[in-house]
């Protein structure tokens, strides 16, 4: 439904048609450094931002007056939007050559929902059920534009990646529930400690050794263009899932040993005073969230602690499990827990673009960048503010007015 409406909106829009130049005059324009221009004017030409300034608008250009805030389009540093089951491959724990860019449907309603929430670019990642899950991609939420075909190599030291049990008929394997209690028929019921899987590696140690061996092998081949080799050579950042503190410490240690750069995803308790220095020393960014209401205070504190320590923070969307409307909620909750408001907004825009490796193109209101921006009724981190319109590549991609029709 959203898809249909937004296309209608594009066609019927008085401004923002391809090839045209136009300008938007907003009460407040938020820049990448966090500064705000009162009564700012943003000029868009051929889908790019060509001028950003204060005061008078060019009388010769079509002008849209916006009585609110203009920010760069939000960027979700992790999601499985438009891919869902296509991002879950249980056949092999090491799928480093898989590419997410081939696993999404650009017309999927997930993207319309994201647009409606002010999200204009997303990092598509595989599910964290494989130790090496594939290569992430950065795509726009409107028009299926691909910003980066190869953003990161996705790795996971999450327990999810260990000994994953593929669903199979009960008469073959019986079934083992999440608590490890066998419900197999026949024979006494056996209670296992922890989860048992059907696939190697089943242990953290097994994952460390197997992945380490692959990195060493790939790194030794200086000419290889395969993702593992490029990550080992420092040409491709990693996107490393690790949730509990010991998983994070393990991932950080692994990244340092193999000189990997990129981002951690998870790190719920990054504020732990024993763990934070390890994260800082690794130089990795951290992708947090999504936070839900009722989330432990300790995990919300992570954002402030990471900011204070100078670590780049991005936010995950994790759709379709989470609704994009909750994306801003995660950020607002972090602010509520003491994180710096300006820095959190940067984490949703230009810092997120840096983490995704696409900051040359998107993430900020700056001359030469893609004209991806959101018109808000007020401050985006105020949850009573609404998204009024979303522009992608200079075209109106979503509008509150049109969608209300």
């Amino acid at each position: 439904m959203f898809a249909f409406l937004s296309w209608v909106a594009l066609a019927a829009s008085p401004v923002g048609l391809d090839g045209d130049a136009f300008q938007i005059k907003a009460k407040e324009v938020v820049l990448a450094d966090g500064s705000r221009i009162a009564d700012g004017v943003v000029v868009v030409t051929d889908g790019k931002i060509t001028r950003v300034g204060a005061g008078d608008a060019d009388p010769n250009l079509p002008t849209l007056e916006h009585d609110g805030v203009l920010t760069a389009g939000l960027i979700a540093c992790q999601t499985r939007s438009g891919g869902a089951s296509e991002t879950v491959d249980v056949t092999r724990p090491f799928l480093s050559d898989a590419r997410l860019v081939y696993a999404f449907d650009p017309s999927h309603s997930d993207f319309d929902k994201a647009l409606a929430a002010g999200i204009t670019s997303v990092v598509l990642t595989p599910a964290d059920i494989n130790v090496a899950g594939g290569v992430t991609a950065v795509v726009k939420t409107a028009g299926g534009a691909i910003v980066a075909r190869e953003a990161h190599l996705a790795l996971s030291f999450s327990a999810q990646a260990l000994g994953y049990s593929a669903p199979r008929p009960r008469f073959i394997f019986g079934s083992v529930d999440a608590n490890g209690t066998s419900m197999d028929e026949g024979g006494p019921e056996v209670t296992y400690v922890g989860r048992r899987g059907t696939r190697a590696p089943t242990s953290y140690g097994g994952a460390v050794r197997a992945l380490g061996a692959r990195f060493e092998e790939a790194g030794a081949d200086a000419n290889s263009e395969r993702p593992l080799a490029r990550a080992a050579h420092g040409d491709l950042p990693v996107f490393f899932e690790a949730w509990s503190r010991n998983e994070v410490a393990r991932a950080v240690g692994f990244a340092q040993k193999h000189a990997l750069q990129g981002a951690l995803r998870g790190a719920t308790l990054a504020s732990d005073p024993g763990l934070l220095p390890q994260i800082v020393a690794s130089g990795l960014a951290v992708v947090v969230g999504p936070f839900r209401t009722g989330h432990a205070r300790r995990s919300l504190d992570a954002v402030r602690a990471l900011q204070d320590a100078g670590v780049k923070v991005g936010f995950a969307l994790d759709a379709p499990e989470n609704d994009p409307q909750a994306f801003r909620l995660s950020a607002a909750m972090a602010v509520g827990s003491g994180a710096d408001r300006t820095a959190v907004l940067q984490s949703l825009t230009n810092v997120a673009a840096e983490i995704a490796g696409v900051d040359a193109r998107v993430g900020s209101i700056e001359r030469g960048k893609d004209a991806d921006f959101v018109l808000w009724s007020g401050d985006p981190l105020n949850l009573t503010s609404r998204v009024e319109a979303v522009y992608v590549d200079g075209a109106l991609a979503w509008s509150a007015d049109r969608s209300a029709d």
Partner: protein
Amino acid sequence: MKRTLNLTVPLLAAFTLASAGATIASAGSATDDKLVVEAGKIITQAGDPIEDGVIVIENGRIVAIGKADDVEKPWDAPVVGGPDFVAFPGFVEAHTSNGLDRANENLDVAPFLDIKDSIDPVAFYFEDCLRYGVTTVNVQHGANCVIGAQGMIVRPTGMTVDAMTVRPSFGLKMSTGPKQGKSRATQMQALRDAFNELRMYLAELVEEERDERGHAEREALFQGRELEGEEAEGREMGGTAWKVDGLELIPRGAIDEKQAPLLDIVEGKRTCFVQCAGAVDVPHALELARQNGFLARTVLVISTDCWRAADRIAEAGVPVILEGGLVDVRRNPVTGEEEETFVPEVLAAAGVRFALSSENPAQRSLWYQAAMAVGHGLARDAALDAVTRVPAEILGLAHEVGSLEVGKLGNVVLFSGDPLSVTSWVEHVVVEGDEVYSRADDVRNKQLLDGTQPQGTTGGVAEQPGDASKSDEEEGK
């Protein structure tokens, strides 16, 4: 000299049932009515310890206690002990569901049942009691009930329940923690219903009496029973919470035996042991007791977690029996850190009277619970009281057990050293003047130490004690 007259034979004792008087059914197995206990030190739990002390017991009771030089020892009495021993009052187990054939009745509300029918006199539990110096045991229905059976107080010695009986039909068990298959809401509903039914039943009885109905049924009830006093005449309803007018018209003997124990409770004539599975249950238990007039006779049997309701317990003024471990170990949901709370200290600080228990299957007996309580910071006197004097008071036996004083029962434990030291052993146990345990003769203690299978027994040492006795029986077949 043999005991020739045994006035309070168990059968009689059974008939004194709810009167809750001072009557004690005495140990039937005594062979001598005099005994002298000598000890290098007597910890009396009633004043200062006595060095080089002597306790003289006659007819089951202490008749003299003091320094060896000050006490006249009967020339014809056998002597137990000597200068190497430390004498201590027998421990009092304030509440247990051990030693039972099965601890839990399937019926939700079963106050008409009597725990005496379930007690297994040869259960290893009672043997263990003596081994660890416990001489008085309050046996109550298990926790998996709404309203359980009538309990009883026993001495852990004797081959029959009658011989073990100290106080028949003592107390009644209730649980505010949900019985298996119930929620807390349905559990409380079942408890309230039990008392509502009692009320309606009594009102109906009175109504029938006034309408001159139901005589024939009551006549049938009286068949073969000779009732006297209030049993035949009736009496106004006692208690403080609620009353049924006209109950004096009903001979008490005409009241259904299923309802009579609950009426006892509402009239404040019977101690209630109310199990609280968690702090959440404490206010419910207290409210139920207030609504039905038995708060003054309520003892809460609490889990470790219940310390969080210590203030509520203190405010109600009821004593508690701490049934879980001494230390509540839990993770703080906010910080994720593990926290330890030493429960007796919280109870003491709130002003709650508490007895310790060894009911938890993982826990060692009362001596060790008291010792660990000292280790965690409870004053030694308070710790020792919590396994002797306080449970004696809770059981209404303060005048009989819990300390070594003239007039009290001759229950004495002789330790090889300090009762709370890990290297001390119970060497002899005297119950009401009879030496009922001597470590030298304790084959199963030897088994616990070195694994030696006692002669004439089968089954591996690792098996359940119950299994071993079962295989004995099977072999006998």
